């Protein structure tokens, strides 16, 4: 239970949390490609929200944008780490087949995340929000976009992502 007497956490936190936690985890999971760290991201996001003065009516958009940002940052830092690990791994023995199969699936997943993280931030967030079920109006509000330009932003993101994925796949 939040203790309202200590005053530091907004009183509507629990209500918003129960309403939107699943959504926020879903946004993070789409960016990260798995549920593994999505809940960690969601926890961070709600901690920030608890200390914020964002109106409850804007919470859905605010939380979704924050989750997408946090998760994209995680993908970027993860990619840096992965490159170092790759460099180390390339010096060692070739992988046995069934392990290689698993690694391929993981690479497929990572390819999508990397491509997503390489998009302009506004595009990647609009894309993730749309595929997480937010309406065009909600996305416009959350990202401070003109209502008519959400479709264009999402479309450009999808187009770039498709090209990125195809180029990435053919260069392998």
């Amino acid at each position, binding site marked *: 239970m939040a203790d309202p007497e200590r005053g530091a956490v907004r009183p509507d936190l629990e209500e918003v949390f129960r309403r939107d936690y699943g959504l926020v985890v879903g946004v993070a*999971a789409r960016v990260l490609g*798995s549920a593994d760290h999505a809940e960690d991201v969601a926890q961070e996001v709600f901690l920030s929200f608890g200390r914020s003065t964002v109106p409850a009516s804007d919470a859905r958009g605010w939380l979704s944008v924050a989750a997408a940002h946090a998760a994209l940052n995680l993908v970027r830092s993860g990619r840096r780490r992965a490159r170092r690990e790759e460099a180390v791994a390339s010096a060692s023995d070739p992988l046995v087949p069934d392990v290689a199969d698993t690694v391929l699936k993981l690479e497929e997943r990572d390819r999508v995340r990397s491509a997503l993280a390489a998009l302009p931030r506004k595009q990647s967030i609009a894309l993730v929000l749309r595929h997480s079920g937010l309406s065009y109006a909600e996305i416009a509000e959350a990202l401070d976009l003109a209502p008519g330009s959400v479709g264009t932003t999402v479309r450009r993101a*999808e187009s770039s992502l498709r090209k990125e994925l195809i180029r990435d796949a053919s260069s392998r």
Partner: protein
Amino acid sequence: MRHPDEGLLRRLLDEPAGVAAPDREHVAGCERCLAEVGEIRRDAELVRTALATDLEPDVDLTGAWHRLTTSADGVRSPSAATPIGRRRGRTLRRPVVVAVAAALVMTGAGAAAANGWLEIFRTERIAAVSFDPADLNALPDLAAYGDVAVTGDPEIREVTTRAAAETATGLGLPEPTTLPSGVDGAPTYHVADEVSVTFTFSADRVEAAAADAGEELPPLPADLDGTRVRLSAGPGAAAVWPHASGVPALIVGRAVAPTASSTSGVTFETMRDVLLSLPGVPDDVARALRTFNADGSTLPLPVPADQVETSSADVDGDDATVFRTRDGTVAAVAWVDDGVMTVVAGPLGDDEVLAVARSLE
């Protein structure tokens, strides 16, 4: 009419109602736009598939909310937050001892639950009695001497707030003003109702037990047969600060300490002496218990001598007993004031539980 831009066509896929009717009509009759919509749809589907998570998040809302409020508190009072790593190892090693401490608080006293015949009184003080654990195991079942009936629900249940715990038990559940480092967040609240054990003494069974044990039976008071003794403990309430590991990090509990009443005029001293002379009670246990004052107000808490050491301390004017496991992993302090016992326990140092005890308000 000019062709709608790709943003509009994209929205047409998701929210056709959000696209103006003339645009919709145009697209429906325009080959070029339909072809573009087809391409946009393929890209959207590809991305939808790429972003789909293989594991749909199976969210445990209650657990997640608990985690959030726990860390929210930690963030709010950073001075109390940090050295969790150090605690974790200590906490995990002795969960059983803490669980026992919790049970002790909730039922009034472990002794009351395990060996009801010891508490023929109203508890005003507690005293630790060190037993060899082997002796404790050897203590006879009360049912060997008469009929035992338990009334009341010994189940411990969780309530949502401190106020609810206090309402349910009629006890003021004190709140610590300082928490040891490593303990933070909001506690959960638990209550247990009053539990009574009614014992009807049977001279026949005592004789049978004596015959089984091959012991000489001391002369029993004539009015003892059929005497009913009612032992009661609780209700009790406790605030439990959880730990990430799931083991309590701190317990603050309060309960109505055990009382006993009897249906005949048998005095505490008589009952005590009879019980302690019964077959099956080890001599050194009987000796230790007989040394208690005869006013029927000191609750002996059996303590395994090889694992727990005890000392006394003062908590705001009350004589308190401090329990500490010999390996230093768990400590507890308990005291009785006006028939109500308060216990502070946790995987902490004895100085830490005392500090919490003295900060209760």
